[in-house]
């Protein structure tokens, strides 16, 4: 269990992490999603006691990180990039970490075997590929058989087999009752691994919801219609109570109607159709809109000199009262 309360980090004028409050529960994989520069890594560093927050706090199993007696048994972390001395062999790297927490030496061999690095245990990580480096980082995270595991971009640089392995590993760890917290900037990656989602943008909490809810709220289906007479078709549809929106590329988009019905209406009014196709908006797109809005929102308030919006607590999205929000607006209401 990881609990964040009002966690804030400022670097001079810039606020990297802005009053984050959420908790990460055991037994599920929680995805931590945000575009590059959203504050994911800073947040994770604060969780691990590496950076000290400007205000607010983090509790790991109810304790501050530096109060943990045997931290590796509580929490194992795969940090960004290779946080490894390139000249120290994989075995010795894990051995020195194990020794600092009083973990028996045989555990080092066990985790090396577990991540598939047993054959290169005596090699220096300097010559490791990105994927092997990630595996070594994961081995270090699993060393203390921790109750909480935290992975920062774990699939970076892994081959498809490695990606598959990491996904299964995370789900298995969660199934064993552990808390699994994994960051990514790829929604597609999260949608197949995470059960719960925490989304941040510009350091603010944008969403804290289950993946199922997020999909239900955000997987918008619509029908794209192309016709040489868009105005006529629009009027015809409007007359039957269906609203069509003109898209940028000159096509029409119709929400919440089967394609057949639109075809029927067009036939009745003898409108020529060039395209009539049902569309599914990807979750990636939903995520991009969600976080892009946070950027716009920021620029807007900065220009008007307003104080920051409402505290991004778990129930109140920042900018939730904005009238221009489109789909993606409803992601909170159902909770």
């Amino acid at each position: 269990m990881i609990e964040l309360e009002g966690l804030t980090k400022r670097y001079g004028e810039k606020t990297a992490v802005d009053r984050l409050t959420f908790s990460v529960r055991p037994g599920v994989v929680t995805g931590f999603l945000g575009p590059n520069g959203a504050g994911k890594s800073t947040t994770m560093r604060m969780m691990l006691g590496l950076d000290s927050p400007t205000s607010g706090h983090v509790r790991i199993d109810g304790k501050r990180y530096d109060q943990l007696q045997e931290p590796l048994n509580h929490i194992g972390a795969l940090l960004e990039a290779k946080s490894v001395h390139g000249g120290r062999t994989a075995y010795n790297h894990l051995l020195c970490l194990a020794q600092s927490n009083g973990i028996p030496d045989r555990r080092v061999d066990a985790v090396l075997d577990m991540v598939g690095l047993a054959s290169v245990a005596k090699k220096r990580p300097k010559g490791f590929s990105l994927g092997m480096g990630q595996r070594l980082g994961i081995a270090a995270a699993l060393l203390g058989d921790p109750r909480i595991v935290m992975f920062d971009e774990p699939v970076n640089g892994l081959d498809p087999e490695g990606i598959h392995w990491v996904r299964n590993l995370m789900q298995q760890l969660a199934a064993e009752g552990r808390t699994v917290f994994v960051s990514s900037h790829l929604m597609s990656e999260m949608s197949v691994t995470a059960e719960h989602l925490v989304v941040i943008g510009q350091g603010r909490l944008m969403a804290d919801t289950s993946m199922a809810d997020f999909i239900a709220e955000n997987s918008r289906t619509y029908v794209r219609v192309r016709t040489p007479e868009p105005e006529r078709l629009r009027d015809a549809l409007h007359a039957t109570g269906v609203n069509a929106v003109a898209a940028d590329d000159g096509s029409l988009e119709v929400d919440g109607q089967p394609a057949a019905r639109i075809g029927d209406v067009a036939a009745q009014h003898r409108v020529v159709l060039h395209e009539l196709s049902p569309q599914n908006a990807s979750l990636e797109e939903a995520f991009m809109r969600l976080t892009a809005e946070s950027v716009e929102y920021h620029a807007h308030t900065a220009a008007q000199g307003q104080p920051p919006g409402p505290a991004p607590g778990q129930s109140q999205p920042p900018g939730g009262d904005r009238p221009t929000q489109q789909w993606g607006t409803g992601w909170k209401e159902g909770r």
Partner: protein
Amino acid sequence: MSTPYAQQPPPSPVPTPPGHAPHPPYTAPPGGGYSSPIPVTRAHLGHALASEWTKIRSVRSTVWTLGIMFMLVVGIGLLTAVGLDSEGDGYIDMPLLAGGLFGLMLGQICVITLGVLVITSEYGTGMIRTTLTACPRRGRVLAAKALVFFLLAFVTTTLACTLTAMIQSSMLGGRTVSPEDPVGEAVRDSIRNGELIATSDEWLDATVGAGLYVALLGLLSLAVGAMLRHSAGAITTMMGAVLLPPILSAFMIGESLEGVRDALLDYSPLNGLATLYGVPMSDEVNASGWPLLGVLAVITAVAVGAAAALINTRDV
């Protein structure tokens, strides 16, 4: 799929240490979490010391720097002794063990480099984040690093110095001093029965004293490295501290600067070492090297304290 690691089938992620029974099937306690079958120990300084010892012995820089230091000290000591020996059997106006100084003046640079690298290599590679997540008590990490490095540097330097002193003593010792030889003030106490010998004080100074001095200088480098967090910056700083004072003093010409010049010479780290070997750079020929060693110890203690304060407050 040509890398050896990729050929292995993805192993079971369930941690099953050898010799351990496999996990009992997990039954989720309400609101609880996972609990590990591996024994939990309370981490203390002993664990940090073991960890730091593994770290220092498992990188090449340790072997290289200490190995080169050993070769410089013993090799140059040997060459000095051979050179002096070939001068003939006459009297040499120099303390018997002083030949060890020249090698150590170069060898100390290796110890300084290692002292810096012990901490800055962690910052340079990002290893420090891994280290501090494994041991969030940063003071403990720094203390363990300092202790392990200091003991290692002290033992190896003292060994090298002792070997060198034995070479000097065996090759140059036992020479007779005739009454017409110009016996300097520095060696007047070291003549017994017309022979130049090394007193027990001289032995202590040239072995344990010199080892302690260089190890303290290395520890100071470690503290500077912890404060600057940058290998090149910290090594340059330490080189400047060691080499600049005698060079600067050469530019202090004139009566008014005499005090500054003398202070620069007296308190330069090189003079501390030279004084321990009985050949001080200043005029005080009979000075003991231990007060200067005390000064270095105080400076080092302050630097380590400052490094501890900084490491606790800074983000990594």
